[in-house]
C-alpha cells in the first residue's frame, strides 16, 4: 500500500512555478498564470478538486505595457463608497524572499519573446552588421538606450 500512498502524494503535490515578467504583457501573461493557479494544466483537473499550484512572478516592475497604459491604467474596483476611487497600477519592487525561492520547482514559459535592445549589442557586433549607406559626417545621432530619470 505504501506505493499507492506516495503515488497519491505525488499526484496531488502542490508545485511551485516561477514566471519572469520581464518585457511581458500583463494581459497576455494572465491566462498562462491563471491556468497554473487553477490547476488546468493537470489532467486530474476538476472544478471541485483543489489541485491548483503556486506561481511566483518575478521582475514585475519590468513588464511591458502598450502606449500610455503605464500612467492611465486603472483597476476597476467599485466599493460603492462616496469617495471610492479605482486604484492605480502598482508593482512590487522588493526581492522575493529566499524561503519562497527554495520551494520553486519549475518555470512557466514566457508568452512573448524578449527583444534585444541596441545597447545590448557589443561594438563589434554593431560594426559587423551590414549597413545600406554611410551617415553624413555632420549627422547627429539620436540617443539610444534608456534615458536618465529627471531629477
Amino acid at each position, binding site marked *: 500500500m505504501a506505493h499507492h500512498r506516495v503515488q497519491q502524494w505525488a499526484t496531488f503535490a502542490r508545485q511551485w512555478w516561477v514566471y519572469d515578467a520581464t518585457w511581458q504583457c500583463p494581459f497576455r501573461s494572465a491566462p498562462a498564470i491563471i491556468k497554473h493557479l487553477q490547476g*488546468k*494544466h*493537470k*489532467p*486530474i*483537473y*476538476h*472544478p471541485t478538486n483543489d489541485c491548483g499550484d503556486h506561481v511566483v512572478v518575478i521582475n514585475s516592475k519590468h513588464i511591458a505595457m502598450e502606449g500610455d497604459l503605464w500612467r492611465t491604467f486603472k483597476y476597476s474596483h467599485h466599493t460603492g463608497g462616496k469617495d471610492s476611487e479605482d486604484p492605480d497600477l502598482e508593482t512590487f519592487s522588493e526581492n522575493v524572499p529566499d524561503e519562497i525561492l527554495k520551494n520553486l520547482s519549475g518555470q512557466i514559459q514566457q508568452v512573448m519573446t524578449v527583444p534585444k535592445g541596441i545597447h545590448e549589442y557589443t561594438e563589434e557586433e554593431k560594426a559587423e552588421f551590414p549597413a545600406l549607406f554611410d551617415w553624413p559626417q555632420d549627422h547627429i545621432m539620436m540617443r539610444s538606450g534608456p534615458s536618465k530619470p529627471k531629477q
Partner: protein
Amino acid sequence: MVFLTLFNLARNRGPDKYWRVQQQLRMSWHFRTRTRTCYRIGMNVVNKALMYSYNGRKLKKEQMKYLWNTRIEAGAGEHGLTRRELLEGLARSDILLDKKVLSELAVYEPRTFQSLTEIAKKTMSDTRVGKPLNVLYEK
C-alpha cells in the same frame, strides 16, 4: 362517478390525501425548515427542485464535455501538443476514441495516453496539412 342517491354523494369524501402528502415528503426530506415537513409550504419548493433537476440533466452533459476538453488539453499539453492537434492526429490515424475515453486515459493511464500522443504527432508530421480527414463511411 355516478351516484344514484343523494345520500351516497354526500358520504363520498374522495381519495385519501395521505398518499399524495407522503409522496411529496419523500422528495423534500433534505430541505430546510417547515418546507420539509409541511405539504402546502413545501409544494412550490418541491416543484422548483424538480425543475432544477430537469434542467440539470441537460446542463450536466454540457459541463462534462467542457471538463473532458480541459483534461485532454492538459494531458496533451504535457507532451507538447494542443487538444486540436491531438484529436486531428488521432482522427487521421483512424483511432476512434471519444473525448470521454481520452480524458479517462489522460488521468488513469498516462503511459497509454503518451503513446497516443506519439502516434498523433507522427501522423500529423507525415500527412500534409491540406489533406482532408479520413471519412468514416465512404460510398
